[in-house]
């Protein structure tokens, strides 16, 4: 499996570690309420098809990236820097 790091270019998956769905970027406000926090920390979709997930290029440039990927075909559709998505 290969992932396209926006900084380094396409790299072998062994340089990356996985975090989970990109929903982790949408941190609720401290007072957003139990449901929002429960959602944020614990609940994840398990889509058959396109998904957005977070990977850390720890074996490379150190960037956190958001990868668009199809869970059915395994096709990798693109990647962006998490810092740019978050801004």
């Amino acid at each position: 499996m290969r992932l396209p790091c926006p900084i380094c270019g396409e790299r072998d998956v062994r340089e990356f570690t996985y975090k989970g769905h990109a929903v982790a970027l949408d941190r609720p406000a401290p007072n957003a309420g139990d449901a929002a926090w429960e959602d944020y920390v614990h609940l994840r979709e398990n889509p058959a098809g396109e998904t957005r997930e977070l990977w850390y290029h720890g074996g490379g440039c150190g960037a956190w990236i958001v990868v668009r990927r199809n869970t059915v075909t395994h096709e990798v559709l693109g990647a962006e820097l998490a810092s740019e998505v978050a801004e």
Partner: protein
Amino acid sequence: MAKLIAKSPGAGLLPVRVGSLSLTEEAHDAITCVAPFQGQEKPVSAALKDAIGAALPGVGRVTGKAGARVAWLGLGQVLVLGPPVAPPGAAVTDQSDGWACLTLEGPGSRAVLARLTPLDLRENLFKRGHAARSLLGHMTCLFLRTGVERYEMLVFRSMAATAVHELTHAMQSVAAQRSGA
């Protein structure tokens, strides 16, 4: 008062020669990590240019010349391999003793590295003056191409023995296969 004795990361490990391949230790005046703060890239680059004659490199590149180079290290960070620097507007950390700097040289160098890194080191893609961050075995490593058959690798100092062991192993393998072919 006693005097502290300095020891390099490769002391007792290097050099290693296998056939026409060699692995040696590179000495730098200092290794300084420079990470410009927000919007400070230009002044930091100018300050570096003033101080050592090498500007901030782009992603995956090295500027300057032997003895005073600036190598891209990672997201927003470069390593200055040369005299100590302290450009204003950047987070500066002395990492002179944090890295084991290894130089692999000789025919078949690329084949040696192909046994240890998933990095695409093809001639036309990873050229002289290029830098890349990847893995050497399981070790994070900064690769610099500094010649036709010459690569410099910076790995964590504590892993120097493992890096030399793994590289030596690969050098032996490649040398044996080249002589057999």
